[in-house]
């Protein structure tokens, strides 16, 4: 009995692998690249606004004063539905308050210091999450790309019967496409756990909304909040009657005394200034994959209970673990660096896949300079356009047109590359332009 798949299955799996990879092509590459860079989301925040006040911790009284100041600054406007206080943590030691209409940094004493300016980091995150499209469409497409990576992993394993025997065979000095294929296959094999983990979690996050609509339609009469309530906890009944400022300080002090081992990361005030207002504190648990536990308080800061992210049903804990497992923010800088490197590997796998396909066609006598130039344009144009948006942030400030800059420049590079295909090989100039842009970015940012 042989355990190797039949040659026919291998061929069909390879065809399926190529079909999925080429269909996803540029979008897969874009999502993998932005996901790799966005691992350092918090660090980019600090680079973007280097003069924002930083602190290792903040006093609950200062948070209370800041909440009162922010709500007072919005008096007379449409009341915010939620108010978020980011509590300083090691990755991002800043206190920041966000409402429906503004975001401000807060000083140690609770005074409002300055508006938050992290436009580029938010642009990068939105590009990764939604491709800058309307949220439901964009996040669903990104979720579909996650499914494609899963299918690529499955078909890739089946398409390579010698996958384990050749696992350490990297013929970097061979020519004619051998080295390229080895890089693609070896990186794919050894980053398989990472690729499957980020693809599965990414597709779960991306497709949860459309899947949720389907499940809610059948089981909850279309009420999607009712579907999620058993997992993440439900929203309390709103009561728009006016009320005083919620006692955030009391809630934070309760956390300091009753839950000293956990680290609060966010305070969320629901419907502030109304009789239905209530407080949630999100706190990280050390050496856990969950993004945190929700600790619920009433408006006076009296503790009411937890949602069960940390110790509730296994489904709650699994759902709460998808975010950190996807973004790699569960082990400080070492895990972030590991995610960055493995993310680069996954990005390189996407890039080399199409080059391998083009190389095979060329070896069969099909020389296609325009297709090759288009792919060169994608592989090098995307990072150039991304770096250009970062340079725009440094040169023009928070209001720079990031989305327009990225997409227009990206498309322009691909189209120019195609037009020049029969006259010049532009890969080296593109690589040089990318290198120069990165050096300029680092020099200006530091």
């Amino acid at each position, binding site marked *: 009995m042989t355990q190797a798949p039949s040659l026919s299955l291998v061929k*069909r799996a390879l065809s399926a692998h190529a079909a999925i990879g080429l269909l996803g092509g540029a979008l897969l590459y874009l999502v993998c690249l932005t996901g790799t860079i966005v691992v350092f989301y918090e660090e980019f925040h600090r680079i973007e606004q280097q003069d924002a006040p930083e602190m290792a911790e903040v006093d609950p009284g200062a948070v209370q004063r800041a909440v009162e100041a922010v709500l007072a600054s919005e008096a007379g406007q449409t009341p915010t539905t939620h108010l978020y206080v980011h509590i300083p943590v090691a990755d991002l030691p800043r206190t920041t308050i966000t409402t429906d209409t503004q975001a401000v940094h807060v000083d140690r004493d609770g005074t409002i210091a300055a508006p938050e300016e992290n436009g580029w980091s938010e642009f990068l995150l939105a590009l990764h999450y939604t491709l800058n499209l309307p949220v439901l469409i964009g996040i669903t497409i990104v979720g579909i790309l996650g499914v494609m990576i899963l299918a690529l992993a499955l*078909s890739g394993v089946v398409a390579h019967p010698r996958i384990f025997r050749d*696992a*350490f065979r990297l013929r970097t000095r*061979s020519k004619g496409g051998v080295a390229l294929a080895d890089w693609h296959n070896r990186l794919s094999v050894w980053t398989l756990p990472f690729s499957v983990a980020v693809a599965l979690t990414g597709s779960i996050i991306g497709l949860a909304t459309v899947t949720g609509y389907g499940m809610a339609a*059948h*089981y909850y009469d279309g009420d999607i909040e009712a579907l999620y309530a058993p997992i993440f906890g439900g929203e309390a009944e709103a009561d728009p009657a006016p009320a005083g400022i919620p006692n955030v300080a009391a809630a934070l002090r309760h956390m300091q005394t009753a839950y000293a081992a956990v680290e609060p990361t966010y305070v969320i005030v629901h419907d502030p200034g109304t009789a239905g207002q209530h407080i949630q504190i999100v706190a990280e648990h050390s050496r856990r994959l969950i993004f945190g536990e929700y600790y619920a308080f009433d408006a006076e800061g009296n503790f009411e209970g937890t949602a069960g992210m940390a110790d*509730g049903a296994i489904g709650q804990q699994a759902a709460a673990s998808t975010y950190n497992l996807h973004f790699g923010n569960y082990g400080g800088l070492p895990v972030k660096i590991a995610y960055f*490197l493995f993310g680069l590997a996954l990005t390189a796998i996407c890039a080399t896949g199409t080059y391998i396909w083009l190389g095979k066609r060329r070896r069969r006598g099909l020389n296609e300079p325009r297709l090759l130039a288009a792919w060169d344009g994608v592989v090098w144009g995307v990072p150039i356009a991304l770096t250009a948006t970062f340079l725009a942030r440094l040169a023009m400030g928070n209001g720079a047109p990031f989305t327009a800059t990225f997409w227009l420049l990206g498309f322009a590079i691909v189209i120019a590359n195609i037009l020049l295909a029969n006259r010049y090989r532009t890969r080296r100039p593109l690589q040089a332009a990318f290198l120069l842009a990165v050096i300029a970015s680092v020099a200006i940012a530091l």
Partner: protein
Amino acid sequence: MGYPLLWIAAAMAAGGVALLRLSWGRPKRSPTLNAAGWAALALAMIFGWSDSGAWGSSVTALVAMAAAGLALGLAGAQARPGKAPASNARVRMLPEGSEPRRLLGRSLTFLLVIVAGLFISIGLAVVVRGLAHAAGWGEANANAFALLMMPFLWAVLAYAILIQPRRKVQWAILLGSAAPVLLVLATGALR
């Protein structure tokens, strides 16, 4: 040094990769070394889990992948120039020469895998949720499990369709997958 179990897990993860490297680098495979390598990796994951659950296993897996990356880097650095020919196998993504473009057929494949696949996978998630709840799982577990399973089911469905060379078999797979969904939706079962 705190967390000794996690350090042991990390060491076993790196050691397991090293054993596999040793085994697979030999002219003839060694079942003993192979087994030792895989066993070390499995034990590493168990120790990581014992130390701190899913977090420990995730960190251990990162160590194993980093160790493999190092071994791979060494293999690449020590590689000699070779003259082995690269593959030029066809995957039939584009027509060659005077072959027909088959635009309609290719578009239909796309529709089957992406559009029909999306709706059937959502439907399968509905079925999975209902079955899990009917089996006694709580709402949180049933809902979360269905949300987690949906992309996995779709990936398997996409793969199963794409490796079939005959359209009839592709339709059969799709209809077979859709059957439990249609049954549940038509009868309102599992509510």
